[in-house]
């Protein structure tokens, strides 16, 4: 008899799962498009800023599908030629992976009225940069009135004991670890030095966690030091968390987030209108404000002081990475990180 209740429970759960999978693809109509979006801040920001502007300017409705970058690529790959949505939003790592898997349709810059307002190179044959992220150190100013200014200090006392580590699962984690490898004599093809340092630091660090766990641990005082992007810092700060951002001496890291049209999209015109709206000064100047804190790329937008960057020109001095070099090695790094840090 209890056996039956277990089965019922499992059947119920399966039915719920099946039901939740249904509506996404059924909700599409003409004059509309479906766009993948990062869950959380991005989802909120694009729903409340970009979607109304798109409807107002072009009469186009957009449905958002909240998915992390890697999940978007996985979903598009699993579709095997049938686009699950029309637009991606991706970080450089997944962008390179998606490009390699031939998941993009071309972007026609002549269909983007705002293309001229972006710095050169931000619109390419299959990518339109919509904002940039800046990664560096962040710390609790009460715990550390004298914060670390160099990557190597993360591995020294008293900082290491309050450090929250995260691995290669995210873009910001990967590029931060590469920068740490560099200061210890490594490079983006030689991560040996940072793995050695991680081994040494493991017994001392305050936490090693997945990327989603870091903000919560910081908020709870479990850690006082981590590496992350300025958006996260601004969001935590807005919630009253004692946190400050600091660009390391070797420079903050920057990478761009870009929109792409999914291969096989049937709403190419609407997709271009969506991209054009996202890079417009009207959208970008709103996306820059709290609680979204997205660093704009449109040159017409004047930056506010909550972004930890003075002008778009600053980006030229920041550290950038070649994901065509990183991607082929990333699986091995993740596997090694798993093995070496596991208790």
């Amino acid at each position, binding site marked *: *008899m*209890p*056996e039956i*209740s*277990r089965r019922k*429970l499992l*059947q119920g759960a*399966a039915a719920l799962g*099946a039901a939740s999978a249904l509506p996404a693809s059924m909700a599409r109509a003409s004059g509309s498009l479906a766009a993948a979006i990062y869950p959380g801040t991005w989802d909120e920001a694009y729903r409340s800023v970009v979607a109304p502007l798109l409807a107002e300017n072009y009469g186009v409705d957009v449905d958002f599908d909240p998915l*992390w970058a*890697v*999940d978007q*690529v*996985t979903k598009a*790959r699993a579709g095997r030629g049938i686009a699950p949505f029309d637009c991606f939003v991706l970080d450089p790592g997944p962008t390179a*992976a998606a490009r390699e898997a031939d998941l993009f349709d071309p972007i026609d810059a002549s269909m983007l009225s705002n293309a001229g307002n972006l710095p050169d190179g931000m619109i390419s044959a299959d990518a339109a940069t919509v904002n940039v992220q800046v990664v560096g150190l962040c710390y609790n100013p009460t715990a550390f009135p004298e914060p670390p200014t160099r990557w190597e200090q993360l591995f020294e006392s008293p900082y290491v004991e309050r450090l929250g*580590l*995260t*691995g*290669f*699962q995210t873009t910001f984690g990967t590029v931060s670890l590469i920068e740490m490898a560099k200061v210890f004599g490594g490079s983006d093809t030689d991560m040996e030095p940072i793995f050695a340092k991680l081994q040494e630091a*493991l017994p001392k660090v*305050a*936490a*090693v*966690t*997945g990327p*989603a*766990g870091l903000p*919560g*641990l910081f908020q*709870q*005082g*479990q850690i006082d030091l981590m590496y992350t992007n300025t958006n996260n810092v601004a969001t935590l700060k807005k919630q009253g968390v004692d946190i400050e951002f600091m660009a390391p001496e070797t420079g903050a890291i920057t990478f761009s987030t870009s929109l792409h049209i999914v291969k096989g999209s049937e709403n190419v015109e609407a997709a271009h209108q969506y991209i054009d709206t996202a890079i417009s000064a009207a959208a970008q100047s709103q996306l820059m404000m709290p609680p979204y804190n997205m660093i704009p790329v449109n040159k017409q937008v004047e930056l506010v002081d909550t972004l930890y960057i003075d002008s778009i020109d600053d980006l030229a001095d920041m550290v950038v990475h070649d994901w065509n070099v990183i991607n082929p090695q*990333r*699986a091995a790094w*993740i*596997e090694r*990180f*798993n*093995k070496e*840090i*596991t*208790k």
Partner: protein
Amino acid sequence: MAGAAKNEPGRVDWRLAAPLGFTYLAFFAAPLLILLAMSFAADDRFASFSMDSWVKFWGDPFYRGVVYDTVRLGMVAVLATSALSYPIALLFIASGPLVRKLLIFIILLPLLTSVVIRTFAWIVILAREGVVNQTLLALGLTSAPLNLLQTELGLVIALTQIEMPLMLLPLVTVMQQINPSLSDASRALGGSKWRTFFRVILPLSLPGWIAGATLVFASATTAFISQTVIGGARLVYLPSLIWQQSMVVFDWPFAAVASVTLLVAVLSGVMLFSLLGRFARTT
């Protein structure tokens, strides 16, 4: 044929079960077969087949360790929830209707909040500045905050609370149906309280425990959120390994091997519990 089936007692017309049956065939059995095939594929396009992923997974002590840790976590969660559930269940059957209603409400309460919220609540409780550490520090029981987050102990504590209703509900349901005169008889014949528990109540409550243990085991071994958020990156279990391999690394055949392994591990646990039940009933 249908008419004949209708007239025969004990036989159910298969057509009633057909909609769900075919749904399962199409949306559960078929994907499962694809998953199995994927684990033997050389890449996610099924270009060629090989045993490489299986050899890589089972040939590496690290991954065998991950399987062992996952199963062990499930077993420990079962033990911990069992140890805490029996006293509550005993209290429940000894109570009057009003207290029973209150107890059921308290048991169900955790199920009414999302597992994500319950997990994050445990971060607040177990953190260095959390309730547990603040209490221990205030009582002078420890001089420095204990590290409870990111440890297996912390994860087991949280999972025990999160999975507790799954053990308690079937246990309470079954124990409610035990005839109270049986324990009275045992006591009247001179059996001690412990003897009565072990010889009368425990065997009779076993079907409920088995159902509870099955649910807790299956749920704890696959508790992706709790394992990732409370366990952190230093404790690797199969669910987070599967996520990582499929979503970040894009090694689908390897993720498929890990998925099939997790499925078999959970099923083995479930079968073990039902075997225990059969064994207990025949002796």
